[in-house]
């Protein structure tokens, strides 16, 4: 048993694991057909190797800083592994004036063991303000949302840039992606009345192409174009995204028919019913994320760094003092600070 542990603890195996990790990381980042998940293999080798070394290698007993560093490193590997298994990462667009809808979430990545609780997630989208400087340079983002905390208290926060909201363990972060949405009323010939929103392409990224296709409840495909009477964004001066009070026109085009234009409040007849342009809103895209061990990952990394510093102070610092100098502190002050 002990001899097997010693073999597993081989420092040569550590080097193999490190080289493999580096090579696979580069390959995975350069080739679309290789998933970064392949790095799990060298990580697993390193974890086993390190566990065995921590149990058998005498170097660690004599050098506490080194021990702390490697224990921190082991914890980093373990927390990364747990995060990969438990995490959730997704995107959702939420319309101003409405509540978040779990059905709209597009999953980017979901760990094997993730217990999806998105259905229970509730928040309401308020006003959005994003300031731009000339050159379409995005500055501060303020997206107001409302939600209830665990204790039932109603909270209203403006998230954006470095501020996020944490609801039921999920982290809600504003992304750069946002745009306008047309609120449309469908009045079907069958008597049905439906109020809904059509999200236009991301703004100002697709400022020049605010067009989308939409299928009416009666099954007809319609092309909708949002046309502002005056430019909303500017390349040469500062402006703010989020205002919806400006004048606009909606162009409704159907294959084989002359296009029609609608102002706010006007209607157009289509197959099986009519649509009315009710209002202009904005939609905001969020990253919805669940990364349970993130704070612990950070603690483990700091532990590792502290261990490294201690190891340096014990093993390297004394050796750097020039022979015959007793002003050790002076000579090495900058190294110690660093």
């Amino acid at each position: 048993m002990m001899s097997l542990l010693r073999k597993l603890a081989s420092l040569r195996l550590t080097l193999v694991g490190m080289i493999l990790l580096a090579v696979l990381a580069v390959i995975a980042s350069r080739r679309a057909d290789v998933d970064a998940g392949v790095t799990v293999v060298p990580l697993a080798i390193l974890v086993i190797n390190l566990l065995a070394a921590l149990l058998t290698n005498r170097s660690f007993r004599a050098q506490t800083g080194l021990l702390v560093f490697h224990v921190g490193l082991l914890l980093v590997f373990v927390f990364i592994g747990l995060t990969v298994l438990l995490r959730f990462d997704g995107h959702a667009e939420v319309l101003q004036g409405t509540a978040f809808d779990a059905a709209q979430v597009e999953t980017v990545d979901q760990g094997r063991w993730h217990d999806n609780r998105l259905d229970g997630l509730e928040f309401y989208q308020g006003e959005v303000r994003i300031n731009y400087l000339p050159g379409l340079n995005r500055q501060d983002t303020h997206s107001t949302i409302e939600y209830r905390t665990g204790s039932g208290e109603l909270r209203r926060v403006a998230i954006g840039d470095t501020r996020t909201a944490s609801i039921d363990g999920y982290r809600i972060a504003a992304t750069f992606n946002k745009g306008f949405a047309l609120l449309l009323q469908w009045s079907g010939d069958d008597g049905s009345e439906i109020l809904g929103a059509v999200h236009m392409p991301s703004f100002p990224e697709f400022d020049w192409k605010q067009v989308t296709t939409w299928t009416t409840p009666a099954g007809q495909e319609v092309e909708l174009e949002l046309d502002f009477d005056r430019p909303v964004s500017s390349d040469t001066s500062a402006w703010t995204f989020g205002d919806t009070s400006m004048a606009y026109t909606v162009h409704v085009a159907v294959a084989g028919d002359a296009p029609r234009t609608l102002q706010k409040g006007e209607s157009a007849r289509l197959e099986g019913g009519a649509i009315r342009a009710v209002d202009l809103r904005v939609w905001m895209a969020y990253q919805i994320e669940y990364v349970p061990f993130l704070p612990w990952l950070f603690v483990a990394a700091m532990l590792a760094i502290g261990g490294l510093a201690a190891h340096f102070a014990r093993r390297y610092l004394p050796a750097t003092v020039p022979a015959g100098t007793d002003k050790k502190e002076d000579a090495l002050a900058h190294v110690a600070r660093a």
Partner: protein
Amino acid sequence: MSLVLERQLVLVAVLLLAAATLVQVAGVVFGRSAYRPTAGIYTAVVAVLAAAIAGRWVREGQGPFLTLYDILLSNLFSLAVLLLLVTASLPGVRSATLFASPLLLVLGVWLTGVSEIATPLPGAFDNAWLWVHVLSGKLFLGLNLAATAAASVMLLQGAVPSRRLAALAAQPQETEQQIWALFFVSFICHSVMLVAGAVWAHSAWGRYWSWDPLETWTLVTWLMLGGILHVRSTFRNLSQGVGHALMLAAFAVAFLTFFGVPFLSIAPHKGLM
């Protein structure tokens, strides 16, 4: 400060670095220590670049964090400061300026050819972790450069037996110890940079790690640094030259990661959206 004056200051710094390089070469040719004149020139470089950076900072209302020009300017300054401090306090690695000076000169010449137009910083850059990330990164590069340049001089001494070259590091044992101490501290700084970068990326871009080329190559650099320290522990009778050659390889990767990768790819690190 006007842009014209800023450009002129940069030009002065480049000329000073050319002078430092010449002084270093002359030191080898004449077999004399060039430490004092070099330290004087580096002090002038630091002062001139500090003035250029301060003037730019005040004029643009933001620090030099974003464009290639910003990165080259701030790194030239931090590298010069660190080389000055390291050679002042660790006499064993004073020879580092022989190779560091021409490298700084190359960065300086590159800087003169790059567009100096500033891009406003996106809101996500307003974050304390970014400061930790940037400062630890600069410390890493400066300390690692000092170690690697001194190690390269020892490699040269090994390859070309010459009394003049030998005079550059009169106490090889002390030099060797100081080189590895610097290398170790640079590894600590690199680790801090990696962690702070991940924390910042998470708060700014909602992801702490996404395998973009810059992140991947930073991880490769970190593994190389740790791997080199391991190689020294694993193979106890490793020759000095092999250790130095490995150090040089790691520095090359770090240098390309700092100055090559961010400007060839991907928006997030440039913060443009």
